[in-house]
């Protein structure tokens, strides 16, 4: 059982503090903050023991969700619970930020009260929590990075119209009362999100590649309609299954949310869901080894040593191998530079590009706001060194990428249709689908 729960921000403020049993340390939150400070910016291990009490935490969006206990907890269940609490907070507040929680702290306390009683978890499903939550969320606008639009099937009868919704459309709290959102629209958002992990050797050969995908659904609907989600018909799951020629969508393994009915999956590749309000991961899947499409980025670097000037010149060329109709946004190319570096000068003059050097971390970052598929970009950087010796060049790299690619997933998994059936209500909700590929850890070595 848990004895306390609290949320602290990275800045060191206690945002929420709840004592369930009164048997914990009275200064638990301060102790935890103290421990954070001792780490001097290094990530704190998720389980700690302080003064005979176990502290376990998850870090989400720069916020620490911490619980304490005197008894031996199951770490898996505890981390799952803390993650769930963080996503519930996000569902109810709309966003997961310092400010969002500060403004809605009464709501968060109300939630916690219903989720956990005397250290025992009661319920965490949005549906069963909803009747007991009365505070309404104050909406806080999150500063959003990329505008990845939602593509809709449209409210029309035949799902032929296409529309776009702004990317933050789904970032709203779930309504507490039907009237609170005005003429509350029924909306269902589905995100196909793939995170890519790649390690590539200097000669271009793959050391490791992996795609982890998920189908995230966020619903704002009245009642409990039945939802049918059709995936690509040629979907094959499993590494061993025979694959014919080329085009089939192949996933190595997939996991479904327990509430998903898979009766139609075998033949029609359709999932039947009774969605509850809020966010929910209906499917997780992964592909390891050879990926079905080309990797989005390749790098080549040419380094010239100018010993007499005590500097290195690096010509960095990045090639984007996406289809020309797609593009990546907010591409950050990180290049670690030698420890002896005093300054880095970059010659990126083009619009929509910028360069930055962080002297403490010795990392040079080249940012490209929009990178079109099937194109190449170059930059030339000069690294000034305090001392020069032959090993300096070997300290360069590896290059790592951060990016977001909209309307593109490398598995080619598609949501073909989404149908809602509701016996009580006759309405056609808005249904939106979005595809995003994100970098998880995309690294290319230079030597």
């Amino acid at each position, binding site marked *: 059982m848990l004895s306390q729960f609290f949320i602290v921000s990275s800045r060191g403020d206690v945002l*929420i503090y709840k004592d369930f049993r*009164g048997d914990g340390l009275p200064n638990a*939150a301060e102790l935890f903050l103290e421990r954070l400070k001792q780490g001097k910016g*290094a*990530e704190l*291990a*998720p*389980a700690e*023991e302080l003064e*005979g009490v176990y502290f*376990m935490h*998850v*870090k989400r969006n720069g916020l620490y969700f911490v619980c304490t206990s005197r008894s*031996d907890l*199951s*770490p*898996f*269940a*505890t*981390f*799952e*619970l803390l*993650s769930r609490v963080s996503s519930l907070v996000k569902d109810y507040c709309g966003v997961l930020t310092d400010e969002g929680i500060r403004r809605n*702290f*009464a709501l968060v306390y*109300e939630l916690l009260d219903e989720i956990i*009683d*005397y250290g*025992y*978890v*009661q*319920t*965490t*499903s949005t549906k069963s929590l909803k*009747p*007991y939550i*009365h*505070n309404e969320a104050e909406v806080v606008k999150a500063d959003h990075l990329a505008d990845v639009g939602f593509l809709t099937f449209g409210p029309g009868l035949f799902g032929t119209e296409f529309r776009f919704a702004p990317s933050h459309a789904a970032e709203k709290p779930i309504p507490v009362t039907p009237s609170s959102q005005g003429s509350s629209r029924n909306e269902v958002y589905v995100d196909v999100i793939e995170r890519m992990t790649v390690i590539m050797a200097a000669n271009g050969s793959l*050391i*490791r590649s*992996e795609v*982890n995908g998920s189908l995230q659904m966020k619903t704002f609907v009245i009642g409990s309609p039945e939802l049918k989600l059709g995936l690509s018909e040629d979907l094959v799951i499993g590494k061993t299954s025979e694959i014919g020629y080329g085009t089939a969508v192949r996933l190595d*393994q997939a*996991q*479904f*949310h*327990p509430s998903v009915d898979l009766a139609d999956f075998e033949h029609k590749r359709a999932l039947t869901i009774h969605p509850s309000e809020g966010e929910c*991961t209906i499917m997780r899947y992964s592909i390891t080894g050879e990926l079905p499409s080309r990797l989005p980025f390749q790098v080549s670097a040419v380094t010239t040593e100018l010993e007499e000037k005590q500097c290195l010149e690096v010509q960095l060329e990045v090639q984007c191998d996406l289809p020309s109709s797609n593009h990546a946004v907010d591409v950050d190319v*990180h290049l*670690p530079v030698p*420890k002896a570096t005093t300054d880095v000068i970059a010659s990126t003059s083009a619009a929509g590009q910028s360069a930055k050097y962080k002297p403490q*971390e010795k990392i040079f970052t080249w940012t490209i706001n929009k990178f079109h598929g099937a194109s190449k970009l170059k930059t030339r950087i000069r690294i000034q060194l305090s001392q020069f010796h*032959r*090993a300096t060049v*070997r*300290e360069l790299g*590896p290059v*790592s990428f951060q990016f977001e690619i909209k309307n593109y997933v490398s598995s080619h998994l598609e949501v073909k249709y989404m149908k809602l059936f509701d016996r009580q209500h006759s309405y056609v909700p808005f249904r939106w689908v979005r595809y995003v590929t994100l970098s998880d*850890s995309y*690294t290319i070595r230079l030597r």
Partner: protein
Amino acid sequence: MAYLVDNWNEEDMQEIRNLLRKPTAQTEHGELRGILKTVLSQVTRGLDMSPLFTDIVKLCATVSIIEKKLAYLYMTTYARKKPDLALLTVNTIQKDCCDANPMIRGLALKTLCSLRLGELIEYTKHPLLAGLKDKSVYVRRIAVLGCLKVHHLNPQFSTDHDIVNTLYEMLRDKDVIVITNCLMALEELLLQEGGVVINQKIAHYLINRLSDFTEWAQCCILQLLLKYRPENDEETFDMMNVLEIYLKHTNSGVCMAAIRLMLHLTKDLPDIIQDVYKRLKGPLVSLLSSDRPELVYTSLCHLEWLNIKAPGKLDKYYKKFFCRYNDPGYIKYKKVELLAILCTNESLKDITEELSVYATDVSVLLSQFAIRALGQLAKMNPAFTLTCIEAMWSLLFLELDSVSSEILVVFHDILRYENLIDYITGVITKLPVCEHVVQDPRGKTALVWLIAQHGKDLLDAPYILESMLDSWEEEPSKLVKLSLLTTTTKLFFSRPAECQDMLGKVLQRCIESSDDPDVREKALMYYRLLSKDVQKARDIICTSQPHLGILPTDGTSSLSSNLQHFNSVALLFGADKWQEVQQSKLIGKSKVYSQSLHPVTVSKPDETELCMPETSQLLDLNEVTTEIRSDVTSQVVSEIKFAPTISLSPEEFEGKWMLWKSSKQQQLPLLESVPPNDIQDRLAGLGWQAMAISPEGSDPWKAFLYAKEANTDQLYLMEVNLHSETDLLTFDIKCQEDQQWVTSAVMKLILDAVS
């Protein structure tokens, strides 16, 4: 709004008070809500808002549920500070407990039980008992846990109202959360007797309905089922079949709880448990690609455990353990450690290459971990040695201070192993290159040490030392100075001609101008030794080091031997840290223990002394090892005393004996034969009563005994065996799990008595 300022003072408090007292405040909900929120946000920030108690207490009567919740939240925070004022609200709360709206009934009941005030139990009684029978599930859920809350305030309550039986009855409730809460409450209420009883009926009922429960309840129930022992293999397999589907659960908490139960069920079936290990691999490995780093870390720790339990199963997944650049530090370090453990001949090349990349990482800590892993590999398996040593050589070539230093430290640690002897010369020839690179004191010390040990084969050794000695004055580290002194002396013995002059200078410098007493003392000692007899000094100072064979490489065996650590925090801490944690918890607990018992125990020490007259002759007490620190033990021993008469039915004894784990076992070789009756009498004198005893003359002689500790009312069970042939006396003590830390002391008492 003035009261939103950061600095909060008496004036602001007054302002709030005025706002609260304004007659309109009671009616205009929006405004009132704003004020309450402000107050509560200050509470969260750690400011003391208790002066407003009187004003807020009045608000509890409000009709709006939001305000009510906020006011009640405030109450639960400060009620203990103002118990007399809290009494004022009781009326309102009691009224709310009878409200038509179940939500308000529940809220009021929850608040009433959470005030943590002993004085209020009288008022809590009726609403609580009514709540247990309420028609709304919401109220029943709260009432069940409410019983537990009140029980902790005053245990008398639960016995007075027969709560235990009521809760057992309520296990038939139709709501799964009510059932879960009942189980959890019973588990705590009956802590002394080993928690809620899981008999076959309950076990089957729970396991068959398991899918109806919430995922969190499933975790708890799977944990409770660990107490159940199926009657035969068939039943075990039936249970395993039901558990099967939970292995695919998306909540890893459920999945792992199910696996733990499977491991528990099959612990006596060695073939099948291997199969469970195989099944366990899948979920753990797939968790490695989770986007939640905390779960990745937990699964890494469990994979480490699994690899000890079922070695070799994970080797082919080694690429999963390659670091991602955005992994948090704690994950990277763990992955590097695991890479070193999982290495095989096939993966050796990939892994050493990968580790070499980490060795030059921006993070110095990661680089140190990677280099240490290379060293670990080199000493672990002779087949890996060459590749790893070469990898480290090419890293030395980079001439980076931190990297070279760490490599030298690693060499310093591993060159003593047999399989590395052939490489010593190779390593030594690389030393001159390092001399000007290494600045880190640890690296320098290691470098100097390497020269001392193997310098006789290195032509340049005196010159390296000389150049290091030249910067003696600038050297801040005492460690480096000390090892320079030793090394110069040692090198002098192997190459006197080149070093005599140097040694003279060093000794003079240390003795005359060193501020540090340690350095001066050591130099003086060398000087005295050398001036007495050079040959003898050599014998004393230059001792040869024995070469070590390859050691079995597991530091975690103590954790892995135990199934119960699976899915527990213990694995996250690792063996060493876990032991530390346990010890610090012990000390903390025994402090509480001794404080609370102090007034009662005055004359105990004498008694224990009386019990041990012939100890030294009869027994070898060196055998008596205690797990906890000696000072703690002696403190506790002095306070343990067994109640003179207690009674226990054979059924109860048997039930507990099966349920409890053995917490302490001890063997005692007797120096001369003792009749079994004598042993029994001595134990009886201590307060141990016999449940069953084998007739005298049987071999081995067996006795089952029980006793109750007088101060804590804890029950202890013991099995005594006497093998007449070997004169070996064995004890096996069982007690409740949370009392195990005392058993060492109990055992000591017994040993003292028997001897």
